[in-house]
């Protein structure tokens, strides 16, 4: 009974923070929600232009290929880069009140998930590519969430004590973008790299999202899925352990 009440409070609280996150982002923007569609659209046009006309990649429907990858990547990078400094940015709250602090990280991710879902919907509407493969989308989303939440909790907890973590993360993200098959496809990279690229959980996630949205081929699913789940789970558990340890003393480092 007490646990049920606690859970309900946790959900209410996380949802309220998510709502705050979404509302405050668009409250003063004239076109409101249009911006969140325009951003990835421009990004896709620019990147697509470069890789289609200057460096010729031979991928069918390159813009479609690019956009589905960018949707997943933007979700990840926006969530991760905003979540890492969140405990520090919300220090006035943390120093003054006791509440489930992990909700701060979760709410950033949920508000981006909200945008991602709208993005998926628009994508399906624009490309008109509905297929049976779409039943795989929830799996892709689950993996994406598991990994994003895990790594965000881990690094945001570390960032409270070690403030240079935030800089490391921002630098890492720039490299990470190119380490993930977003602008290129996996059959362009040398065989010798092989499974190595799947040590980056985002590789498989982007692949499976692409498969479900626009039927780009995918192979060796069981082993890739296994590797992905293993890595994501390790990071997730590590994140929880570090958070649990550091959380007690967040206030001391603010």
């Amino acid at each position, binding site marked *: 009974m007490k646990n049920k*009440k606690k859970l*309900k*409070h946790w959900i*209410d*609280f996380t949802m*309220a*923070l998510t709502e*705050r996150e979404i*509302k*405050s982002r668009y*409250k*003063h923007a004239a076109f409101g929600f249009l911006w969140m569609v325009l951003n990835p659209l421009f990004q896709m046009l620019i990147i697509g232009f470069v890789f289609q006309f200057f460096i010729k990649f031979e991928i069918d429907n390159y813009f479609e290929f690019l956009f589905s990858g960018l949707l997943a990547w933007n979700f990840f990078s926006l969530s991760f880069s905003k979540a890492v400094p969140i405990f520090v940015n919300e220090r*006035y*709250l*943390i*120093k*003054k*009140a*006791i*509440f489930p602090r992990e909700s701060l990280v979760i709410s950033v991710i949920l508000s981006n998930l909200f945008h991602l879902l709208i993005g998926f919907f628009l994508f399906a509407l624009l490309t008109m590519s509905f297929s049976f493969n779409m039943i795989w989308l929830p799996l892709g989303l689950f993996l994406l969430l598991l990994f994003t939440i895990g790594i965000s909790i881990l690094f945001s907890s*570390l960032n409270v*004590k*070690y*403030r*240079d*973590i935030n800089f*490391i993360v921002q630098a890492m993200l720039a490299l990470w973008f190119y380490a993930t098959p977003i602008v290129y496809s996996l059959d362009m990279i040398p065989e010798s790299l092989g499974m190595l690229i799947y040590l980056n959980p985002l590789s498989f996630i982007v692949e499976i999202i692409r498969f479900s949205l626009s039927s780009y081929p995918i192979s060796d699913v069981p082993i890739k899925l296994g590797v992905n789940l293993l890595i994501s789970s390790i990071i997730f558990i590590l994140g929880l352990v570090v958070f649990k340890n550091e959380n*007690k*003393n*967040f*206030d*001391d*480092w603010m």
Partner: protein
Amino acid sequence: MKKKKKSKAIVINKISKEYVLHHQKPTFFGTIFGLEKRQRFFALKDVSLKIYKGEKIGIIGSNGSGKTTLLKIAAGITTQTSGKIKAYGKVVSLIELGAGFHPELTGRENIFLNGLVIGMDKDEIKKKYDSIVEFSGLGDFIHSPLYTYSSGMSLRLGFSIAVHSNPDVLILDEEIAVGDEKFRKKSMKKINEFSRKGITIILVSHWLDYIRKNCNRIVWLEKGNIKADGGEEIIDEYVDFLKKAGKYYYVI
């Protein structure tokens, strides 16, 4: 319901809190490569204190004596390095009113957010919403965004939410003197009403007259230790101590 004469509210057992002094924030690289030296000090050392239901405790002591650290541990905002603490019931701290207020959201939206922050649930807030607004005296301003509020107005709103949260222990600091004279009277009345209901009040202040008037037990902290624990006479001892140390100028 059986009512014991002295049931416990918070039991603090040999609590110490050690802080790392940071002239510089630690860095990840610095720690890995061992480039940083840490200096440590104790903000609290082996402090034990039993607080009973319905007590109005005033905590006094000079700056840096560990008052805030003690309250933060009691409220669960930070954790002790060693020792044990047990709180019976819900502890709500008013160390800062209006924690988590968001300037872009309206008063109404902020009531829900802040209420959740201090541990109320949604239905509870809905039920008490009208009463919260009324007590804050904000009227139609409740539908305007917070950045249009004066600082007094947001404090009033914060106080109003906090007193509606059904605490068992209420921690207050200097800011109890919020708003104008009228609201101040109203809030003091509320605090006294709480204490009659058996809610424990812990008060931290340099405002000794206020403590003298409102508290029935005084705890004097000095350098992380409890120097004295008792009634009103402690305040006089404290004033003597300050006079001797030549620090009495700020107490009127």
